[in-house]
């Protein structure tokens, strides 16, 4: 109604003007629309070329950063990875690589801050926790390092989580070994060993760590397991020889060490390592020659006992003569030797197994007491002392 009234109020001229105005406005709006369309396509073309170029730049700088990181040039890697991230800010792997580069460049504070920020976005991320654990370890913050190692073990990993967790556990064990927390390290290693697949490399790796963590028994077990794989590896033979020797299983040690020395790769080992193994074999041989084992003939065993007795008595005499005042422990030992018959014949000893046992115990005890009172023994005394630590294990 209002429109009709308005229409009726306009003169024909004004109506014509109005139509003209509507036409003009429509044309103006259409031209505006056309401008929008044209500008849109220009902007789109610009944006597309720009986006493609950004992707290329991100990739180019990422490659440079990774190469620099591999080449041990973390400062160059930092610049390159920062540049890459400027063009692809959401790339998570790139972010982690940058933080790793910061850590590698010893910019620990920056690296920790960056990793902490990344962790806030991905609280359960195993890789970030591992990196933070390493940085905390580097800073000597043991509690934090252990927390982050544990979080890394419990955290999420992309794809190869099973393998990565084992690697983290081995790294944690090594950290604990370095901190002399052998018990805790052993626990981690035994868990790792329990979950490990039947893979000789992994078995040998864990065995090596167990050996370092002062657990030769479990290490020997794993070395033996490793030796079940053919061909026998030199590392496994060496480890088995060493650990058997450390456990006073000199018979086993001799067998493994002989196989080690006969292994084709043995000559490729460093001279020092070769010498060490040869010495161990020599010692094991000597020990087996000195040890009065039950499988020996009565005569042979008695001869060895008398030989050992002589070595121990001489060691005691030397030790006593080196002291101006005789310590009570040495005096007790001397008294115990005094209680034995002054002269012992082979026959007498062959007929008295109890005396044999008493003499050998006295030999072992003498070597132990003299080593405490007069320092570490050498030569046959040293070998006797080794036997004394676990006589029953010698021929295991």
């Amino acid at each position, binding site marked *: 109604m209002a429109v009709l009234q*308005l229409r009726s109020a*306009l003169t024909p*001229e*004004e*109506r*014509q*003007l*109005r139509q*003209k*105005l*509507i036409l003009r*406005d429509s044309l*103006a*709006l259409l031209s*505006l*629309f056309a*401008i*929008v369309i044209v*500008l*849109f396509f*220009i*902007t*789109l073309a*610009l*944006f597309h070329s*720009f986006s493609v*170029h950004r992707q290329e*730049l991100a990739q*180019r*700088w990422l490659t440079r950063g990774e190469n620099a990181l591999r080449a041990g040039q973390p400062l160059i890697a930092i*610049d*390159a990875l*920062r*540049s890459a*991230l*400027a*063009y692809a*800010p*959401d790339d998570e792997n790139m*972010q982690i690589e*940058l933080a790793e580069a*910061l850590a590698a460049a010893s*910019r620990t*504070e*920056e690296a920790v*801050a*960056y990793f*902490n*920020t*990344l962790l*806030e*976005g991905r609280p359960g991320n195993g890789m970030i926790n591992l990196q933070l654990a390493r940085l905390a370890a580097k800073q000597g913050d043991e509690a934090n390092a252990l927390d982050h190692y544990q979080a890394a073990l419990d955290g999420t990993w992309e794809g190869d989580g099973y393998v990565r967790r084992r690697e983290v556990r081995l790294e944690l064990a090594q950290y604990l070994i370095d901190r002399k927390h052998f018990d805790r390290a052993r626990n981690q290693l035994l868990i790792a060993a329990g979950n490990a697949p039947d893979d000789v490399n992994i078995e040998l790796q864990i065995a090596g760590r167990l050996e370092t963590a002062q657990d030769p028994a479990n290490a020997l077990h794993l070395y033996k397991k490793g030796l079940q794989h053919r061909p026998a590896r030199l590392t496994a033979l060496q480890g088995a020889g060493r650990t058997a020797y450390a456990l006073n299983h000199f018979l086993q040690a001799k067998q493994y060490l002989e196989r080690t020395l006969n292994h084709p790769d043995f000559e490729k080992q460093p001279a020092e390592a070769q010498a060490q193994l040869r010495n161990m074999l020599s010692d094991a041989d000597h020990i087996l020659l000195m040890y009065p084992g039950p499988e020996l003939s009565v005569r042979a065993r008695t001869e060895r006992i008398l030989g050992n007795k002589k070595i121990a008595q001489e060691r005691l005499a030397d030790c006593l003569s080196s002291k101006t005042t005789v310590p009570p422990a040495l005096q007790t030992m001397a008294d115990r030797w005094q209680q034995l018959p002054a002269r012992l014949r082979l026959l007498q000893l062959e007929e008295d197994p109890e005396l044999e046992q008493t003499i050998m115990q006295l030999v072992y005890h003498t070597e132990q007491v003299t080593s405490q009172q007069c320092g570490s023994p050498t030569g046959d005394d040293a070998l006797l002392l080794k036997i004394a630590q676990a006589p029953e294990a010698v021929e295991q």
Partner: protein
Amino acid sequence: MSVQSMQETVARISKRTLQRPLTQAELEKIAPTRDERLFLVLSIFIGVLSGLLVVSFRIAIEWIKILTLGSAPHAGQFRLILVPALAGLVVAALVQLVFPAARGSGVNQTKAALYIYNGYISFKTVIGKFVTAALAIGCGHSLGPEDPSLQIGAGVASMVARRLNLSRQRLRLFAPIGAAAGLAAAFNAPISAILFVIEEVIGQWSAAVLGSIVLSAISSVVVARWFWGSEPIFRIPPVTLRDPRELIAYAVLGIVGGFAALVFSKSLGYLRPRLRALPNWTHYCQSGIAGLLVGLIGFFGFAQVMGPGYEVIDQAMHGQFAWKLLLALALLKILATTLSFSSGTPGGMFAPTLFIGAMLGASVGSFEKLFFPHLAGTVGAYALVGMGVLFAGFLRAPLTSVFMVLEVSGNYSIILPVILANMIAYLLSRALQPVPIFEVFTHQDGLELPSMEEAREESELHLEDAVHPVDVPIIKGQQTIGEATQALTAARASALLVSPWDGSWYAMSAAELTAASATSTPDTPIERVLPAERVPILFPDMPLDSALHYFQRWPVLPVLNRAIRGKIEGILTQDDVLHCYHEH
């Protein structure tokens, strides 16, 4: 004159009328609702056009940066010194010789267009701003693209409105509409842009323009997001307030931000007028020298301060820097921006403000995290709050600063730290530097634009400030004229208030009562002689000036209680109102 010749004359006149532009009076007559309808439609067009231009502007800046400074500028590259210096010389020449209106940030220029030039911003200015600002920012001058985007948007709006021959009043309103669109696209944050334009450009919530501002801002953000995605300009890490004790740390950030805003304002306020006062020939090389100095900062190890620095804000927010480096970056950015801006290089203050705030925030956050780990939250949260803090302290837009942080973080849980820190910074900055920075620039440019901060704080007078207790007789409508005369005489008043049966009020002067007494008997009920009109309904909280124009008709005005119908709180005379204005 024959009929035919008369018709020819009329036709000739009509044709001439159709060809010339119509006057506003003619437009009002033939299409009274045209402006209003076009206003809304054009707001959308303006939003879309501004969005496209701002996207192109940002791409231009990035392309120029890559082509001139390289894809990864870093310390030790000689181009870091050469490029901003040469670009400064070129930009200065363009500004001096071709685009004089492109100088400065763009915020004050838009305000000037609104308040002085009837919303007029020339096409040349838009082109000039686009080219010179893109060149300067892309080549490493320490300036941002937001304020130029705001002016580009306002310019687009002005051009569109002029093309459609809209009224002067409408033309003036288009500038803030375009400004909101430009800023919204640059920030990818429509609410902040709308609030900033209302808080800093228009200065008031006007229903006439609010709808259009919202439409244009949303249109431009839709366009910007179509290209850039819905993510804010920097990635926001997760931010939470875990422990109320963290508020202490945020309060410290507010104090640091307040002082930083003061340093920044004072530096600009000191250097800018001195450089402007130098002889005219020096204006051709000031930008070049500023570029050289900024380049030297970059060359000697702090390339991060060059350009707008969004990626550096992003890195700081994600904890990539140690607190000492962050602090150094904040201080050097203040220096670099002061040099670039004071030299008259076209470019904005928003991005540098956000940069400095983010660096300070991250620095305070990292420091507290290092030394008081139980007090501090995430570094990203501090950087985010830091941006708001400097926005509030330096640009003095407290409401925008709070909403900006909320909008870019998309996280409401940070509201408490943001409000606390921003308000501390705002109040501290206001106490130490009473004149806001944009107003300082306005005065330096010799303009007198309205101060939005003063306007916000002006205490408006209300009727309750002038009202006094009822001291005139109050008569019921049924009472007689004789009783009314008697009451008026007894009170020795010049008027009385009559309350008719319907609860309305009538203020009758003594002269009116005398006239009524002359024409009616004394026992006539007074409501019979009352005319139909009644006094306006006024309440104590209404503005004082709302009563002024009624005194021409009424000798006295009753002020009513809003809760109890018919109850008078007091009365008001013209003298009361004038006295109140004198007092304040």
